[in-house]
């Protein structure tokens, strides 16, 4: 039977505490349609409703079957709030829908399928995994796990699986891990902060891409048809977000995730510089800069619609959701233009600008690049590249590589062929001949713009790794940190993302070379000073540890 390509499912827009006129704010999200098994279990996500604290494995209902004459039914569309909250089936479906929506956002933005970092295809999602104020992604267990716990004041339970931004945040950790597995390695405070910061950015922008959430921000009571001009300045919107969402966001849930919304909206550039030394504070600065750009673009888009000091509420809501969705696209695509190891925010800044420039060379409708550049710089994040095509964007390589001995058609899907190309051009690409070199992935992409423009690219990602002794560091122009023994084993990483155009020519070669002593020195110094060489670092369930530390503000 042929069935409809997408379906709609009802989710809780943010969390059960965000309400209008006493009812929970809901949203109807569109996700890829598929023939679901019970769970629900789909081709990428399998919900397993197992509570390890009680040892109960719940049976979940079968999802409504597909039809040939339209999308399948939305089983919770007409349920009351109480029915939704009391139904494990809804909890399971809510988690499934948000994970699938986040995955779909990534796949659309990147123009290809996105794999999990583990060998399997289906991520297990446990909506009631344990009785604990916690939620995390665990690659080792191939799972996203969400806890539950009693309210601090009041007799109800709080469920992490019902909080949109918590589910989206953890899903983003998993997706980013699949795209850039080296980002969770110890490197620098910025790289450590990036995983958290990026997950917050995706969670917040995917939240604001829902019209129901934007409407709640602009009109908390839900009964106005117009919005005053005074309410759509950047400062007024900040206040509205805090009042409309931040304030109501339960204290209990903010304990799991901190409160990234509040922090990112409230953190101003003059405060940012003092916070950038610690990993999670670093992440907050990046989130604040991107959210600042979001608000500025939104305000800019609304200005032409203001008539008689007011504008149409529907228009204001639609623009807010649209700006969030487009900016989210840029942020996700920027991962492809970021180096695979030792990421710094300045690299991500250039990646953001390049990602948008590639799709929309003329920044004249939304002015995303202008606003992003200004916001990032105001928060102390200068793009890594000066940019010849446009300020801040990556530049193509200076010299032409040798294309003669490789076949691009084959290179698009065969890491061996990609490695041959990289090896043939090792001098041009700045590779160390004596380092272990591996092509991590070769990914052809077809990126579609909102205006129908299609961009075809292939992204190859490779890493270099060299294991040397402390005494040998000077051969690479690196000084041994004070106190390090000459026999101390040190692992240095390099690696690049190579972007090919549709004809197989290199557009960008973005990354860190083992021959870059400044970057390598900074990374080594940080690892040495933070005790990474002497502590035993647990590699298992790194995100669970990270999450617990962040939860207790104990870094």
């Amino acid at each position, binding site marked *: 039977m042929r069935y409809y390509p997408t379906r709609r499912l009802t989710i809780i827009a943010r969390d059960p505490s965000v309400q209008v006129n006493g009812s929970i704010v809901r949203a109807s999200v569109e996700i890829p349609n598929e023939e679901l098994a019970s769970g629900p279990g789909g081709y990428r996500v399998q919900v*397993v409703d*197992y*509570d*390890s*604290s*009680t*040892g*109960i*494995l*719940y*049976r979940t209902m079968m999802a409504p079957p597909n039809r040939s004459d339209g999308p399948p039914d939305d089983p919770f569309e007409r349920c009351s709030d109480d029915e939704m909250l*009391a*139904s*494990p*089936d809804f909890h399971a479906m809510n988690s499934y829908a948000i994970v699938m929506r986040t995955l779909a956002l990534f796949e659309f933005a990147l123009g290809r399928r996105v794999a999990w970092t583990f060998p399997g295809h289906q991520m*297990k999602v*446990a909506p*009631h*995994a*344990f*009785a*604990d*104020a*916690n939620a995390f992604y*665990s690659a*080792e*267990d*191939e*799972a996203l*796990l969400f*806890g*539950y*716990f*009693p309210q*601090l004041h009041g007799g109800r*339970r709080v469920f992490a699986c019902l909080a949109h931004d918590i589910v989206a945040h953890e899903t983003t950790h998993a997706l980013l891990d699949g795209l850039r597995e080296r980002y969770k390695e110890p490197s620098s405070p910025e790289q450590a902060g990036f995983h958290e910061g990026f997950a917050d950015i995706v969670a917040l922008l995917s939240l604001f891409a829902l019209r129901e959430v934007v409407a709640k921000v602009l009109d908390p009571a839900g009964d106005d048809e117009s919005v005053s001009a005074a309410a759509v300045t950047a400062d007024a919107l900040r206040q509205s977000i805090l009042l409309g969402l931040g304030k109501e966001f339960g204290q*209990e849930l903010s*304990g799991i995730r901190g409160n990234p919304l509040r922090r990112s909206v409230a953190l101003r550039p003059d405060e940012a510089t003092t916070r950038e030394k610690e990993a999670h504070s670093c992440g907050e600065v990046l989130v604040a800069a991107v959210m600042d750009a979001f608000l500025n673009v939104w305000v800019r888009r609304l200005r032409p619609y203001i008539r008689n000091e007011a504008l149409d509420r529907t228009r204001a809501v639609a623009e807010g959701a649209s700006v969030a969705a487009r900016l989210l696209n840029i942020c996700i695509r920027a991962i492809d233009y970021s180096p695979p190891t030792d990421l710094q925010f300045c690299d991500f800044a250039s990646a953001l600008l390049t990602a948008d420039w590639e799709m929309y060379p003329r920044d004249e409708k939304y002015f995303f690049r202008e606003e992003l550049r200004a916001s990032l710089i105001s928060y102390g994040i200068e793009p890594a590249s000066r940019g010849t095509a446009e300020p801040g964007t990556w530049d193509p390589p200076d010299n032409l590589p040798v294309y003669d001995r490789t076949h691009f058609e084959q290179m698009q899907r065969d890491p061996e062929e990609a490695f041959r190309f990289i090896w043939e051009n090792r001098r041009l690409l700045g590779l160390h001949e004596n380092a272990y070199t591996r092509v991590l992935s070769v990914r052809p992409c077809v990126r579609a713009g909102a205006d129908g423009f299609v961009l075809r690219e292939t992204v190859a990602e490779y890493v270099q790794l060299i294991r040397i002794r402390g005494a040998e560091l000077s051969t690479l122009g690196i000084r041994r*940190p004070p*106190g*390090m023994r000459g026999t101390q084993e040190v692992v240095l990483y390099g690696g690049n993302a190579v972007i090919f155009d549709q004809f197989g020519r290199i557009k960008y070669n973005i990354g860190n070379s083992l021959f870059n002593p400044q970057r390598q020195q900074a990374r080594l110094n940080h690892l*040495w*000073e*933070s*005790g990474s*060489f*002497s*502590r035993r670092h647990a590699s298992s*369930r790194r995100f*669970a*540890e990270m999450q*617990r530390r962040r*939860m*207790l*503000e*104990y870094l």
Partner: protein
Amino acid sequence: MNPWKVSLRAYNVGFGDCSLLTFHYAHESKRILIDFGSTKPPAGVPANFMQRIARDIATGGSLDAVVATHRHNDHISGFGSNSGKIVASLKPQVVVQPWTEDPQAARDGFGRCDQSETCTPNSSAVRNLMEMARKGHAAYVHSGSPSGLDPLLPGVEILVLGPPTLEQSAAIHWERRCDPKEFWQFRAFWEGRAEACKAGDLFPHADRYSPGETPPNLRWFLARAQAIRKAQTKNFVRILDRVLNNTSVILLFRIGDFSLLFPGDAQIESWSWSLGQKRYRELLAGVRVYKVGHHGSRNGTPRSLWNLFLHRSRDSESSRLLSILSTRPGTHGSEPAHTEVPRRTLVETLERESNLFCTQNLAKTQMYREFEFIL
């Protein structure tokens, strides 16, 4: 009637603490064992070294009191198993522990009722301490409370400087950088667990699998989920364990103008309360014998405490401060991260400004070093 002599035995337990304090009166002696635990033995000693130490303590006759400054293994492991039986046979009349160990204490984030379910490795020691306390007199102390030792030690003033209660110091809830409101995390975890165990079910009316019918494709994940839950609990216990340092008993013994300070593992957060009290600061200034806190860690001897000691001196005069350090280097922390225990810079200061004795300097054949102070 005042004691005419005090002797202090510092046993070498490797990484841990064990001090035997004896007050000599004209016709009798009173013996108090302060901590008895080890997490890493001294190099080259037989496996039953704690038992041998217990037997050595027993050769001196009965014990009048034991003090367990806090429930960390490096302070109480010896109260468990065979060595614990020997200590129990010495029938201590008083058992001093921090208020957090009081079975009657209100349930709290790190109160004892939560600990009991956490498979702490020193449970036999904890049980033995409870049993000894039940047979004798239990003193659960906090800053400013009676020590419970006063009736035993005439002529000795015993002050409990720590731990502060929750009301006295919000900082004890969590270490310095954590806001007291984070306390709810502990509660959320333990109460969630307790509620889950009690209620047994999130959705009583929902359909579920009976234990024997778990689908084969889910069994791997269910086993992983169980392992995650155990790991979560262990992780939380570790966090709580750190907090326990700040519930460590701090005792100051004063006989005339001679005083000895035993701070257990109290760290900066706990000290900050005591050091904030004017009377305590005045009394601490006169300390002559300092049992170095927390095995010489960087947080165990706050600079503000060290600077108070008037008997610090660069000259080796007779009234110079005596510092006693019980530790084993290479057990915790790292030098590059400045967290090694004992902290090098602290040891240098102790050597420079006091007569420092460190248990690690004892020969393999020496079980302890005894110091005598004629009053």
